[in-house]
């Protein structure tokens, strides 16, 4: 395809092509890399560079933090709630849904970070795949920040060939819906994925249609669009809208998803937040709190990314004792709090003598 579009030469060397297709850091779930980026890099020599190794390792570590500390610990809780959703109050379902948003981000994002980091150690530059997605201020913006390699792939190989936005508004809306429904199917051949994709498409169509209305409202109410509180409101609203779609993504069926959403809105008892139920959802109190702290760390890192603050660069400028201290803390944070290995079950070790 890219060759046809003259974006890249045709690779005639089968070995190089095979390497491109099977490039291990990204083969399983990593960024979907285009030939014009990766294939060119394969032909170039990659001398070992200390800086690449250092930042690559740190990126991988961040990936493991996302994957084994956050995603895998949260998964225990989310599975417990979503697989037994009838037993839980709307508040618990809402908390589980919010946590699922973190889980799915950290799961995909973690894989991507590990892949990009591993590739960087070897001197390859893979494209960024997640750019602080939950700080997006609209659904369209979210899709520019979420699984970027997949979104742009769909854009370049489906949306644009379908005509994109060049053939009138109605056609554009249709194209958007088609792309997102296809994206749903790509994630899994099941109706709840299709609906998940569909809702995302509808969001954007509505967003486009409502654009003049919103512009008018801003004008009448004298809203400064750059204002922090306005931006914050948009970010929160986008996050909540996206969360609604995640219910369909995670639920085991469409009916389950509908019941869960209904219960979230009707069976609210905020008291549940305070009576300890949250500590009995598959992970104990300490782990739950650790997850909250970790989400805080993730939030700080993402906000820095959002504001274009280069944390890694700042760290590398520090004195050696500080850098090493941070490295060690980070490594042991992941090693200790990560969910891996055979579970330590105290009960397994209790021996009943009589």
């Amino acid at each position, binding site marked *: 395809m890219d060759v046809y579009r003259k974006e890249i030469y045709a690779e005639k060397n089968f070995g190089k092509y095979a390497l491109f297709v099977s490039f291990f850091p990204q083969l399983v779930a990593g960024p979907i890399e285009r030939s014009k980026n990766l294939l060119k890099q394969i032909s170039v020599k990659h001398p070992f560079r200390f800086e690449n190794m250092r930042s690559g390792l740190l990126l991988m570590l961040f990936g493991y933090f996302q994957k084994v500390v956050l995603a895998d610990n949260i998964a225990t809780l989310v599975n417990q709630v979503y697989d037994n959703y009838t037993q839980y109050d709307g508040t618990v379902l809402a908390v589980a849904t919010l946590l699922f948003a973190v889980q799915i981000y950290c799961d995909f994002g973690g894989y991507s970070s590990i892949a990009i980091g591993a590739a960087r150690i070897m001197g390859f530059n893979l494209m960024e795949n997640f750019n602080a997605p939950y700080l997006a201020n609209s659904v369209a913006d979210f899709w520019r920040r979420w699984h970027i390699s997949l979104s742009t792939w769909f854009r370049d190989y489906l949306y644009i060939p379908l005509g994109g936005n060049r053939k009138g508004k109605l056609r554009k809306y249709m194209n958007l819906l088609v792309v997102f429904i296809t994206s749903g199917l790509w994630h899994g051949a099941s109706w709840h994925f299709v609906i998940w994709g569909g809702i995302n498409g509808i969001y954007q169509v509505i967003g486009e249609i409502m654009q003049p209305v919103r512009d008018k409202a801003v004008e009448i109410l004298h809203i400064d669009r750059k204002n922090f509180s306005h931006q914050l409101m948009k970010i929160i609203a986008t996050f909540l809208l996206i969360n609604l779609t995640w219910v369909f993504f995670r639920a085991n069926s469409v009916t389950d998803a509908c019941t869960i959403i209904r219960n979230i809105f009707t069976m609210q008892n905020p008291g549940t937040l305070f009576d300890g139920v949250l500590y009995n959802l598959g992970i104990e109190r300490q*782990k739950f709190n650790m997850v909250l702290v970790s989400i805080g760390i993730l939030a700080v890192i993402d906000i820095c990314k959002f504001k274009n603050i280069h944390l890694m660069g700042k760290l590398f400028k520090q004195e050696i004792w500080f850098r090493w201290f941070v490295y060690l803390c980070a490594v042991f944070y992941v*090693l200790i709090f990560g969910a891996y290995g055979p579970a330590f079950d105290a009960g397994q070790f209790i021996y009943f003598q009589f």
Partner: protein
Amino acid sequence: MRRKRIFRILSVIIFLVLFVIVYQKVERVLSLKTGSSRIYTFYHEEKKDSLDVVFMGSSHAYYGTHPMEFWKEYGVTSYVLGSPLQNIGTTYYLMKDAIKRQHPKVIAVEGFCTYHVDKVKSDRMLQTAMDGMPLSLNKIQLGEDMLADQFTLEERLPYYIPFLQYHSRWPELDSDDFKNGSNIYKGGKPVFKTRSFPAPPIITEKEELPENTLIYLEKMIKLCEENDIELMFYLTPFAGARDGEEVYIELQKIYNSLEEYLRERGIPCINYASLVDEIELDFSSDFKDIGHLNINGAKKVNIHLFQYLWENYSLEDHREEKGYTIWNDNIEIYDKKLEDSRNKTAVGKETEVVDLEEQD
């Protein structure tokens, strides 16, 4: 440019060393201490090549042997390298590994491990022994020999890399996890609790020794010969068996055969079941439970055992020697701890925790 490269390589190495040091500390804090601390302190706190005698075996070894009494009476340094339900295979590999750290004149094995012939009666018990050992080829051989035919590699890995399993223990850490195991008792476990039993029957019949026992016995004998270490066995007495009289009888038959087998091989073996009268063992006051001696019973066995060791091997009295002051200083702490423990038991405050250490 070249200097920079050398500096970088060096800094990576130093960082890795630092990492390994921190890793070992963190791993120990996170590890479950029950049952493994006496082996851990053997490796990490006993001065290298400072022990004259090493006692080995299961709980019968550490409930029934108190090295500090040996020191007080004869000035001989010793240690009980025991672990719950230690089977003879574990004893062999642990011995093989321990003699790299200590080169004792005598190794005295409490023989209950020879009855324990199943490769792994309880994998958790094997883990307590292995948790205390530093990673080494012997440790891996031990794990592979005991586990390879029943467990997948993935299941075996936590035995070699305890971190894999114990890292998830962090929510239940308490202050004890940050303390190093007490080294005062030198591996012994004195208990004052007393339960009364009638004297058990004396069994004289024999039963064929299990094949596994013979294999590892021979390996042990060879190992000690090669390393110029005297090997002996001792068998602490039982008041019966938890699982019924049949088990008790079977065990005594095995013990009788073991005694005979070792005599033929020229290895000393003291069976205290047949010395009950000589050491004046009292079944109404000398046991903590049906299979284990309390401190009263252990002292009676120890008087005989230590005298035997003193008379039959060229052991030295170190009490006046300079390098051993720590052992003398230890006596006071040891006596005080024993006294505290006795008082606690007297007022019934001794914690009745059914833990791994209660095991055979």
